[in-house]
């Protein structure tokens, strides 16, 4: 673990991967630093934003966080999302990973994903859990408009576009689920730690 300086209101905790990120995030959710204002988990880091300058004591506290979270994982129920697998890149992705389309769909619907972190847009969650043989590159040329609800793959991640936006991920399907609604609590359906499954259907 490294604790990196990030100006006069934040520290950046860098760890090995998404499991350790989840451990740091959960530890700081349970026992926040004094004045902790935001936690921003990402692929290998957790940004800790404070309402005051960080101190050496904060750095020491972060270094003492448990490496492997001893507590049980988030007890959140699995969120099952109906997905119509008819995305414009579905056949290309199947060809890239050397499977038939029905076989690809069977594997993707068999995965239990975990929301590792957010970012990109309100309500977007980076879903981890894809087997390595399904990791595909982004599209060489991003689309200028990806529709809301598009289910997509890129690298080690799956994701769902919460609303229409530009995007470079491979589109394999779509869901009618509402990913982000400011009048709902919590507004984001997919929050870090949540478990997700895709079910074929629409």
């Amino acid at each position, binding site marked *: 673990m490294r604790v990196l*300086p990030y*100006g006069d209101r934040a520290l*950046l905790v860098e760890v090995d991967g998404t499991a350790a990120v989840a451990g740091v995030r959960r530890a700081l959710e349970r026992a926040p630093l004094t004045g902790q204002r935001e936690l921003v988990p990402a692929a290998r*880091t957790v*940004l800790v934003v404070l309402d005051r300058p960080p101190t*050496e004591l904060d750095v020491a506290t972060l270094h003492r966080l448990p490496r492997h979270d001893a507590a049980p994982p988030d007890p959140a129920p699995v969120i099952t999302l109906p997905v119509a697998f008819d995305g414009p890149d579905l056949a290309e992705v199947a060809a890239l990973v050397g499977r038939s389309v029905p076989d690809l769909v069977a594997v993707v619907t068999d995965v239990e994903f975990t929301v590792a972190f957010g970012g990109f847009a309100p309500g977007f969650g980076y879903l981890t859990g894809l087997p390595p043989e399904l990791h595909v590159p982004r599209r060489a040329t991003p689309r200028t408009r990806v529709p809301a609800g598009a289910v997509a793959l890129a690298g080690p991640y799956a994701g769902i576009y919460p609303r229409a936006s530009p995007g470079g991920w491979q589109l394999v399907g779509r869901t009618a689920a509402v990913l982000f609604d400011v009048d709902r609590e919590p507004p984001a359906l997919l929050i870090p730690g949540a478990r997700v499954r895709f079910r074929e259907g629409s």
Partner: protein
Amino acid sequence: MLTVLAPGPLTTVQDRGRPGHAAIGVTRSGAADAPAAELANRLVGNRPEAALLEVTAGGLRVRAGRTLLVAVTGAPVPVEVDGRPAPFAAPTTLRAGAVLALGPPRRGLRSYLAVRGGVDVPPVLGSRSTDTLSGLGPPPLTAGTVLPVGDLAGEEPFVDVAPVGPPPDRPVLRLLPGPRRDWLDDAAWAALTTQEWVVGPDSDRVGLRLTGPRLGRARDGELPSEGLVSGAVQVPPDGAPVLFLADHPVTGGYPVLAVVVTADLPLAAQLRPGDVLRFRAAGAAPSRGLGSS
């Protein structure tokens, strides 16, 4: 209520923003020059959470629907009420039907118009701020927008005028090291802290795009996306740094070389395209002993 007759180039509703939602992709937003916004609220006796108008490059005209107490702060602009000069940074009473007009700022970019009671648009995730990046909050004001006035007022104000100077002509912003200084070559930090930088035309509430010497990488490869803060100076592959402001994305995939100290963010928020600025290394870093364990 206030009726917008002309919004100028860009006027948005802002308050202290919506902290605490970065993990679900929602940035803080809020007034870009927070101390100027706080002062405007204080001048009309508002509670600190009251929303006000952030007026970019002047040009706003509004009509009061009833007698209202207002104050204008931030970038100094000529203020007129029904065509007559009115004070800047001082509580001013508008009679019902009066038209308040802000001219172009002599210096700086963002002025703040507070109205006693606060601008009472519906809050989204606990804030009335417009997030120009994700579109949360009310849309930018257009001619004809009617803004309700709320009841977020406290004690009657007792300040006549706040003596505030204009933003400096060529500000020097203090920098602390960012988390990825080692991704840039040694010359990058030196160039950032000694050279002049010019604010690019595509700068906005998301960030200032800066032109100057090209900052070079010390290492190749892609940095996995990681969290961003206001004041972060990120260096994309083209070597032209971006200084993030209130509507910054919550994460970014390019190395952050440096971070502007919080106290100097208001200076950054008042820079306009074409302005020249410098950076200098701030004194002692806030924490030492950082490293592996």
